[in-house]
């Protein structure tokens, strides 16, 4: 009880910071990943190199990525900005890949019916491809969100705030209570995001048989 009195306000504040980092990064990742993924379905030749780059970003250890971005001008002087850029990079691959795969796996028979009915390519995208790929795309957004919530805890290492701050402080002072005060809300955030987006994903799924 004492613990909550002492840290309650800070936990709330850091949770809010954590959410802010995650939500902004996800916003950018969707704004970049969705149109880029759609573009790749029109220009298949670009798919391999671009998905490859996104893949490489994903494999860089998060602590290293934060460190590597520190000397970059405009990023280095604002830790939160830097963290959002790095998190966007991590979230990009699942969104990009699922958009590309989701649209590509629309039944080619339906694509040709869409053409035969005289759809413009914009109509085909909006009325056929996106609705049919929606649940796959959302599954990518869901994966990306969970990754983001997790990686955002590392952002505290460069002073970007978030729940990682409690964890790092707890580790440094060998205070397990403090570690849990950061870890439990972070885990809860991930679980809530996962099940909420999972619910939306189910709603968007199209029944075929």
């Amino acid at each position, binding site marked *: 009880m004492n613990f909550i009195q002492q840290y309650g306000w800070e936990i709330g504040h850091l949770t809010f910071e954590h959410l802010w980092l995650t939500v902004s990064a996800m916003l950018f990742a969707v704004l970049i990943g969705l149109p880029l993924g759609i573009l790749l379905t029109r220009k298949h030749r670009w798919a391999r190199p671009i998905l490859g780059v996104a893949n490489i970003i994903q494999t860089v250890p998060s602590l290293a990525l934060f460190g590597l971005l520190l000397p970059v001008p405009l990023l280095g002087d604002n830790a939160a900005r830097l963290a959002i850029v790095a998190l966007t990079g991590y979230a990009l691959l699942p969104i990009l890949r699922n958009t590309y795969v989701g649209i590509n796996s629309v039944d080619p*028979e*339906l694509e*040709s*019916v869409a*053409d*035969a*009915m*005289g*759809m*413009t*390519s914009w*109509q085909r995208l909006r*009325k*056929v491809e996106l*609705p*049919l790929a929606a649940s796959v795309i959302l599954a990518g957004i869901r994966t990306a969100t969970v990754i983001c919530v997790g990686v955002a805890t590392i952002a505290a290492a460069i002073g970007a705030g978030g729940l990682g701050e409690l964890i790092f402080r707890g580790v440094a002072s060998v205070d397990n209570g403090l570690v849990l005060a950061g870890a439990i809300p972070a885990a809860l955030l991930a679980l809530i995001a996962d099940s909420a987006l999972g619910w939306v994903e189910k709603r968007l799924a*199209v*029944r*075929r*048989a």
Partner: protein
Amino acid sequence: MPTAGVEFAKVSYTPAGGPSILREISLSLAAGTTTALLGRSGSGKTTLLRTVNGLVRPTSGEVTVNGQSVTSLSSSEELVVLRRGIGYVIQETGLFPHMTIERNAGFGLELADRPKAEIAARAREVLQQSGLDYDALRERFPWQLSGGQRQRVGLARALALAPPVLLMDEPFGALDPLTRSEMQAMFKSMQQQLHKTVLLVTHDLGEALFLADRVVIIDSGEVVADLHSAEVFESENLHVKDYVSAVRHLFAK
């Protein structure tokens, strides 16, 4: 000489790096008539049908629909306009699984930005014309319908924009025999009123004779027989005789 609904002039198609699929096919389909395109799987009949609505672009030759050249259309807008005048029905119906039956049926009008009331009225009309209970089915989705019902919706959708030309690619091929014969009878009486220019791909001689005025047989991308339905049983053409004997041997004791 009746006006040509669809005309093929020396149409050839060879995909990049592949064997040629269509070889100099020339055919003229009179407006308002039904032509059956018969042939084995892989003979090129579906490819020929798809040159009419521009899903396949011939390597050489010209296809015209009601006097307008399909093959020389340069912009995609022109192709869109042309395609809205051509109904397209396929075996697996190609209904959009995320749309209700009503929306599927009226979708061509939705694409053409027609007013909502007109779309709804037309969807009702074509669904009823295709023998479906509009009020019971309009809110359902394709997976909730039987194969025969789905095929009726596919036909209704193709008719919605009142296209003068109808392309049908084995439309009744996936149905059980009883449903198939119901659909064939319905389509025949419908065609007697609507007089579309119909190109029907099938591998069933019985269906071809029942529905079509004229039968064209394609083999390895070439027209090997072209005759009136009434002449089929008397024909000396070897390809025609093959089909006839394939049907007759079923009934031989």
